[in-house]
């Protein structure tokens, strides 16, 4: 049984976190829900507007529809590609190669740099009309591509930036691959199973909990993407990279329509929550846990 003093000491340790949680997360979270039902421009007290903001969003706001479509497209394109790529690299790095630790570190470096402004600026130069990628394409006799100026290419270019930062998902996959019992592979080899067969029937099922974890994390992060499109294309051309976080930012801090921005933020939150719940529900059918009788 914990003594009174120890209990208070524990509380004292967590107090800064609890205070931060309230001040920077919980209170703004609740406040934004309230503000989403108001007309609030920062300079005047919020004025109750009922569901006007939501009605405007869903019935008249063409920009919202466009931005939502672009966001969903971005997420559905980015998340599977990133998971597949991270798993592919993790699979390779799981072999006992010479200098393997060096390779593992090198592949993780882009994720340390993260979605920083500096990397986004670098990306802008690499894919600019006279950038490195077009120089390579023309060197091999190809036609330069308008990566940012063509609405059909711009979102793909932003997606590549996110893909490039596959390191964190890769490290988690690598840890999962290394935890698979080697005797299973030996048994499969004795039974004459090929590499593909082993991968799909042993490796993949055993790492489904990690795939599920990465899926949720990457999906939530992708919905919150801001730096890349803001720095590289500012949401253009023709709003083809205008993700919802950019729209929220512009409504809140360019037009000071905090009520409307809060409403968009809440719609985004509900979308993320619903998709997360769907993922959890579907996980019963495809995620296998060791010792779980359903498995």
């Amino acid at each position, binding site marked *: 049984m914990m003594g009174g003093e120890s209990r208070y000491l524990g509380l004292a340790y967590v107090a800064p976190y609890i205070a931060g949680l309230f001040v920077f997360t919980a209170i703004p979270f609740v406040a934004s829900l309230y503000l989403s039902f108001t007309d609030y*421009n*920062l*300079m005047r007290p919020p004025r109750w507007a009922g569901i006007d903001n939501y009605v405007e969003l869903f019935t008249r706001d063409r920009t919202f529809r466009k931005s939502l479509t672009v966001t969903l497209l971005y997420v559905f394109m980015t998340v599977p590609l990133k998971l597949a790529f991270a798993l592919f690299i993790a699979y390779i790095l799981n072999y006992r190669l010479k200098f393997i630790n060096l390779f593992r570190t090198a592949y993780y470096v882009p994720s340390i740099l993260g979605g920083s402004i500096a990397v986004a600026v670098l990306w*802008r*130069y690499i*894919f*600019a*009309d*006279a950038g490195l990628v077009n120089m390579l394409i023309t060197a091999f006799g190809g036609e330069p591509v*308008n*990566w*940012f*100026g*063509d*609405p059909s290419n*711009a979102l793909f270019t932003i997606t590549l930036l996110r893909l490039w930062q596959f390191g964190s998902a890769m490290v988690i996959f690598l840890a999962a691959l290394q935890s698979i019992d080697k005797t299973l592979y030996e048994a499969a080899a004795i039974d004459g199973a090929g590499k593909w067969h082993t991968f799909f029937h042993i490796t993949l099922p055993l790492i489904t909990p990690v795939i599920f974890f990465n899926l949720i994390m990457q999906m939530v992060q992708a919905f919150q993407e801001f730096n890349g499109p803001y*720095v*590289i*294309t*500012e949401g*253009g*051309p*023709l*709003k083809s990279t205008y993700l919802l976080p950019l729209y929220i930012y512009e409504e809140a*801090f*360019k*037009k*000071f329509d905090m009520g409307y921005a809060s409403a968009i933020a809440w719609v985004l939150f509900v979308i993320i929550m619903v998709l997360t719940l769907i993922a959890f529900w579907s996980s019963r059918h495809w995620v296998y846990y060791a010792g779980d009788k359903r498995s």
Partner: protein
Amino acid sequence: MKRMMTALAVVLACGTGAAAAADLRMSWWGGDSRHAATQAALKACGEKHGHTIQPEFTGWSGHQEKVATQLAGGTEADIMQINWPWLPLFSLEGDGFADLKAFADIIDLSQWSKAQLDSATVNGRLNGLPVSTTGRVFFFNKATFDKAGLPLPSDWGELIAAAAVFKEKLGEDYYPFDAQGGDGLGAILNVSLVTTQMTGKDLVDPETNTVAWTPEELQKGIEFNQNLAEKGVIRGWKTVAAGGNVSLFELPAWSEGKIAGSYEWDSTYKKFNDPIAEGSLVPVDILTVDGAVTQGVYRKPSMLFSISRNSENPRAAAQIVNCLLNEPEGINALGDTRGIPASRIAAQTLAESGAIDPNLLQAHKIVMEAEGPTVSPFNEHPDVREIFADTLEAVAYGQISAAEAAQEIVDGVNDVLAGF
């Protein structure tokens, strides 16, 4: 007895309008030269009047958001550098900032013209003092025009004709001008300028607070801008977007002279001129279209110094504002880091000391001598800008016609104006 004497001294001090030593804050945006100059000016003015002033400075990006958040929380600096188009956003009723007329005994308001003070007045309350007046002016890269064997253009016709010569003599990637893409500002200002020249009217009719241009008039302005892109006078929107979100003056094509002109704020002359590799930019008189009713100069107060309505020491803040704008300590320290000063005494002091860049002086002269209708701050309202930018981009990408765009802009801007 001693207490009585102290109390008497305080009463007398208050009665004569003197401000006791105060701790103040001042916020502004700008580049390195402005930051250094302003800090030196605050030190000099602080020492002169016995106050300490804490500087709070950033670059342009994000400064409006910072000020908005501070104003909402009542934590803004005592003295603020405010962008003129922010007045309808932050002080719609005129009570967003302290009324500087209340400090007329401290600030020498006679250094500004009535028109200048009116431009900073909302609902009869003087919300700030114009630091400088700025306007859009045409700059051209003389070295590139020399290589093409052309004089600098004096009207739109000559500029359009220059495009073909540039392509023939210098190469397909040479453009005599630039007004497209990115956030769409170049295109917006170009369309607005040409439409104003053709109609003699600003975008907003101040009498009715509605769009002054008919859709047909605006359509001509949009078509004019489109024509510039089609004839290779300016880069097309798609070409500009291909370079990503980069400012014109950061482009190698700009420093190399391949893009040889632009229409920019006179106060930004140095920023655009500094990267030029060969020769320098030359400001020219505002280009006009055939049959122009006016030069249509886009002139406005570039920025204001305002005092917080929540300041605990507004009289001390007023002393510092007056020092920065009207007293030699402030004037000499600030120099031309905010353009040519609007205060008469400051402009005269700097002119006499030869502290102003001659090209900047020339650009400013062009702006001040040109004529045109009064520019409404709604031209720079974020909603208005967004409508223009989105619609002009759609035209550039061939999604809608110029006629449809003109109708959309007129309707959209009228909707925005109806909210005021």
